[in-house]
């Protein structure tokens, strides 16, 4: 198994992986090493790393600008940390305690969209009915999402 991670300091990298002799998968990700343009969903490369088991991994931020739910809109981009580990994509938002995994990045991002809409609905309670962590999540969401 091998991959090449090609980066330059402008805006792009590509990753090519080869699983065994018969199956080859190419993943091309547009990344940036600078700050994100708030109107774009261009990924921001973070790092590549190893897990001590001879499998290299990489991670990046994927900003999202829309929840694709007519009831909610984002005030500012939300950054999903994405990792490609083994043969699986993994994405998470630490501030919201949500994570998703799947065979492709769109699958993961779509699940996270759904998770955020669900969590907004499930946290529709007065603060007195929320524990410490739930309050923290609600506060983070209030700073991020406009409810229409």
């Amino acid at each position, binding site marked *: 198994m091998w991959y090449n991670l090609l980066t330059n300091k402008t805006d792009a990298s590509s990753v090519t992986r080869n699983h065994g002799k018969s199956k080859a998968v190419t993943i091309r990700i547009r990344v940036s090493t600078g700050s994100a343009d708030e109107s774009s969903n261009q990924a921001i490369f973070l790092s590549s790393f190893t897990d001590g088991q001879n499998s290299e991994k990489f991670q990046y931020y994927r900003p999202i600008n829309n929840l694709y739910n007519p009831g909610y809109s984002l005030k500012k981009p939300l950054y999903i940390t994405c*990792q490609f*580990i*083994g043969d699986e994509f*993994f994405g*998470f938002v*630490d501030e*919201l*305690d*949500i*994570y*998703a*995994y799947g065979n492709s990045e769109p699958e993961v991002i779509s*699940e996270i969209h*759904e*998770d955020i809409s*669900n*969590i907004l609905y*499930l*946290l529709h*309670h007065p603060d007195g*009915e*929320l*524990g*410490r*962590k*739930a309050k923290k*999540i*609600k506060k983070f969401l209030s700073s991020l999402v406009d409810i229409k």
Partner: protein
Amino acid sequence: MAFKVYPEKVIRKQILAKVKPTVKNKGKHTIGQIIIDSVIISPYLKIPNNHKDEFHIHKAKKLAQALCIDSHMYNGLIDCNVKGNDYYQHLRDTQF
């Protein structure tokens, strides 16, 4: 302590048996909430699926975070050392 790797269905079984989340949604994943005395402690708990795939460390970390526990308690919860009452006492001590 490092997170141990268990099959997803083992983790699911132990969470449903010990944590007893209030199940809110059964789509691709079962979603639950942890509620104590009508107070929502963990608002969004994505419970692993009922299959034999391994639930790797990077996922276990995020699940433990949603459960409000560290790796030691996570391993104990799945290994049977930590009982449901111990877990709930931990939440009462840390989340109110």
